[in-house]
């Protein structure tokens, strides 16, 4: 007996008991749809995190952060100058695997229009030209700060879109560049306006002229509020003079961010940086290297945990669905003993009966799986509506194939016992069965 015949017989059997078949499929339907939805949900979280991470600098970004020196070094802690511009210079000179170095100092001061209007205390950062690359900035209009700005100590600034729209709400972005802005009372010329950073869904909402959902946390808030000026200008304007012996090189940094040139040499690059900093810090271990990798690993492991628990629940419901099929198949073969007897009498071999029952239960689970796909599409739409994050569920072909395959395997497993039982029926007693 060919597979096709078993398939036809099974299909006819399923169709002649539509409601019963549907009930036996229900577990599979729920299992498959929840499995697909879980996978779409975790995939969405993963993707959202990845995109977010990329926008914030990617894996290549490494931060040098300060820390308490270890107990062993405690007495020598004062030998270390801490994180200074010297570190940045030394890294740039000696750590060849690092492509960009960005020392930053942030401070808060009053920022206002040229006429003093719109004055408000804001965070201003003195940065190197490398900051443009490390901060993953994009210029909407004008230019970014250049190394020349740093050398000359020019009074120029690059501002974020929120600052621009708050200071000059009526002015089109193209007219912002060239205007004068007062930072701590000193005039700076705006040379560049940064792109408005926003999540894709916010951009969509804005284009559709819907009100922005401000209840959400905006990961780009601080980027949009940037006021960036050349590092040297910042030093001369705001930091020198208080202590005459201060030089720019010994200034303590708030941020020292690095970018690894080639991710394939990530570890080696970190070693280089560590070696350089060990020298500039005179052996005091008052710094640490913070990588996105750790963060990524954390996110990944929590996504994995979510996927695992969701998958486990779905798998359990698939197994329960399989048990449901087994129940129905057992009931159905005891109803069909005489039919099986007739089939045996006209020449069906036990294995023909075995395949007939097995194919039927696989078919039930396959149809259940198909219905499950449909149900999952609806489920994912609902999830998209209520999903409180930017992590929109992503449906993948792989998850569909995997779920349906799992369902068919569950059907196969649950069909084995009834099929074996049916194929062991004795033709004589099966024919006599009333």
């Amino acid at each position: 007996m060919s597979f096709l015949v078993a398939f036809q017989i099974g299909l006819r059997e399923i169709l002649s008991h539509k409601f019963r078949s549907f009930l036996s499929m229900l577990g599979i339907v729920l299992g498959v749809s929840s499995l697909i939805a879980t996978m779409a949900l975790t995939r969405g979280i993963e993707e959202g995190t990845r995109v977010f991470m990329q926008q914030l600098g990617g894996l290549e970004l490494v931060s040098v952060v300060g820390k308490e020196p270890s107990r062993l070094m405690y007495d020598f802690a004062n030998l270390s100058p801490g994180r200074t511009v010297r570190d940045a210079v030394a890294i740039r000179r000696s750590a060849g695997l690092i492509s960009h170095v960005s020392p930053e100092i942030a401070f808060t001061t009053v920022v206002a229009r040229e006429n003093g209007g719109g004055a408000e205390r804001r965070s201003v950062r003195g940065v190197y030209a490398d900051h443009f690359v490390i901060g993953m900035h994009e210029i909407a209009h004008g230019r970014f700060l250049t190394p020349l700005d740093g050398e000359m100590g020019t009074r120029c600034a690059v501002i974020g879109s929120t600052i621009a729209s708050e200071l000059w709400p009526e002015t089109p972005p193209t007219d912002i560049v060239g205007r004068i802005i007062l930072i701590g009372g000193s005039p700076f010329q705006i040379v560049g306006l940064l792109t408005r950073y926003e999540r894709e869904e916010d951009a969509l909402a804005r284009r559709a002229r819907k009100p922005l959902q401000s209840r959400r946390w905006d990961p780009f808030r601080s980027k949009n509020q940037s006021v960036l000026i050349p590092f040297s200008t910042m030093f001369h304007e705001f930091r020198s003079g208080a202590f005459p012996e201060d030089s720019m090189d010994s200034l303590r940094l708030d941020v020292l961010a690095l970018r690894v040139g080639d991710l394939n040499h990530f570890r080696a690059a970190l070693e280089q940086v560590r070696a350089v900093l060990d020298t500039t810090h005179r052996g005091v271990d008052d710094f640490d290297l913070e990588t996105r990798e750790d963060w990524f690993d954390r996110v990944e492991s929590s996504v994995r945990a979510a996927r695992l628990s969701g998958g486990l629940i779905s798998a359990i419901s698939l197994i329960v669905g399989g048990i449901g099929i087994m129940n129905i198949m057992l009931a159905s073969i005891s109803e069909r003993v005489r039919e099986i007897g007739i089939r045996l009498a006209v020449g069906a071999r036990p294995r023909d009966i075995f395949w007939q029952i097995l194919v039927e239960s696989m078919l039930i689970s396959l149809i259940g799986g198909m219905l499950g796909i449909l149900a999952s599409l609806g489920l994912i739409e609902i999830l998209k509506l209520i999903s409180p994050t930017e992590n929109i569920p992503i449906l993948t072909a792989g998850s569909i194939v995997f779920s349906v395959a799992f369902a068919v395997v569950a059907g196969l497993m649950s069909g084995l016992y009834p099929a074996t039982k049916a194929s062991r029926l004795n033709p004589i007693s099966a024919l006599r069965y009333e």
Partner: protein
Amino acid sequence: MSLILLEDISKIYRVGDQEIRALDGVSLRVEEGEFVSIIGPSGSGKSTLMHLLGCLDTPTSGRMEVCGNDLSHASQDELAIVRNREIGFVFQSFNLLSRLDVVSNVELPLIYGGVPAAARRARARQAATDVGLGDRLSNRPAQLSGGQCQRVAIARALVNNPRIIFGDEPTGNLDSETGNMILRVFEDLNAAGKTIILVTHDPAIAARSQRIIEIRDGHIVRGQQP
């Protein structure tokens, strides 16, 4: 060579620790083209003999050959293949599948004989038409009379062109006129060369066969040889 050959066949059932010798040293030959009937009271081993002759079961001991196949120790699979190729069954209670129409019922043996679908349908249709059901092909058994049901069963028995047609009280559920008609079909088949084996308790029906095999207490008491 005989079509069916039983040599010193015994069939022993165990019920608890009690042994029941349903057949006890039975020997029997049936030649091709014969029309034989098997009679005997209930409990005589008639059913057991019928199951062996119909290749539904194997003997406990002895030698059994059907159509040249030694089935003394045959597996269920071997029995199924011989049943499929060489034997057509007609039962007292018709044993049709109620969910299938006439053609689908008739084609059942062809499915297990591995005949391709198109040929299967054609042959089943032909067999049903041959027994006079040409206008009932897509009816279900519930829509047919008893005589028509038995014709479907006969068409099913014939569709694989077997050498042996086996009737187990084929007229038991029919009125005498319809029963008579069915018996005539059997006689016609016999005239066309088929070997017919009827199991019956009705001496009048048995009398229409060429040879009566009578069984009592597990022994054949009449009609052992052609």
